[in-house]
């Protein structure tokens, strides 16, 4: 095995730096299983003009067959007052890809954790800078 591949494997085996498995919210569905970085792609803008509505797409590299599919995708915000944003159970979706619009209470990191049918967990994370509106609207 080449040196590069060896390091790559080690990195893959490491617990995802974006996800703390001792985070009670993460623990509630992983039960301490390692969450590996990869296979998940979380697409959000790096800079959001407004925290009220930010476009988000999450896709998971999966054939979506009965024996090999994504059971669920969890979306977690680091700093929202309510950190669990959504859980998508992909059922009979032929493509493991969901888009929505999220609400962010300021600049923060968000994490997408996918649970696969083999019981493994994979993740991706992104940091979104959220600008605030200049003038208070009052409604």
């Amino acid at each position, binding site marked *: 095995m080449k040196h590069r591949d060896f390091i790559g494997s080690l990195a893959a085996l490491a617990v995802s730096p974006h996800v703390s498995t001792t985070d009670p919210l993460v623990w509630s569905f992983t039960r301490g299983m390692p969450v590996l970085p990869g296979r998940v792609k979380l697409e959000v803008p790096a800079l959001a003009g407004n925290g*009220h*509505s*930010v476009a988000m*797409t999450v896709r998971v590299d999966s054939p979506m067959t009965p024996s090999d599919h994504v059971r669920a995708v969890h*979306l977690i*915000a680091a700093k*929202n*007052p*309510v*950190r*669990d*944003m*959504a*859980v*998508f*159970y*992909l*059922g*009979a*979706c*032929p*493509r493991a*890809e*969901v*888009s*929505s*619009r*999220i*609400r*962010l209470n300021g600049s923060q990191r968000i994490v997408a954790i996918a649970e696969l049918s083999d019981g493994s967990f994979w993740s991706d994370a992104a940091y979104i800078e959220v600008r605030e509106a200049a003038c208070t609207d*009052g*409604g």
Partner: protein
Amino acid sequence: MALARIDLPHEARRGELVEVRIVIQHPMETGFRRAPQGERVPRNAIHSLACRYDGAEVLRAKLSTGIAANPFLRLFLRATHSGALDLRWLDDDEVQGAAQTRLVVSP
């Protein structure tokens, strides 16, 4: 009665991947906002949602206040036969919502 818009192609060929885009009218009230008089507007967000196509569940979701108001969802399904696309949701006030449309599938 809350409205929803379900956007999908009028017709699809059997086996084709179909993109479905949904917008549901709902404030997804966080419970942190204050009304003009200063009182807090109570939390009320859609917490459960299910999308079925031709009877089978395509997507189920647990949503929270971290999803923006008038929630948007984009998902994919595989065209099998012509059938109903059925969307149902339930919010914190235990109000149910539903919307249907039809996917026409040509062989």
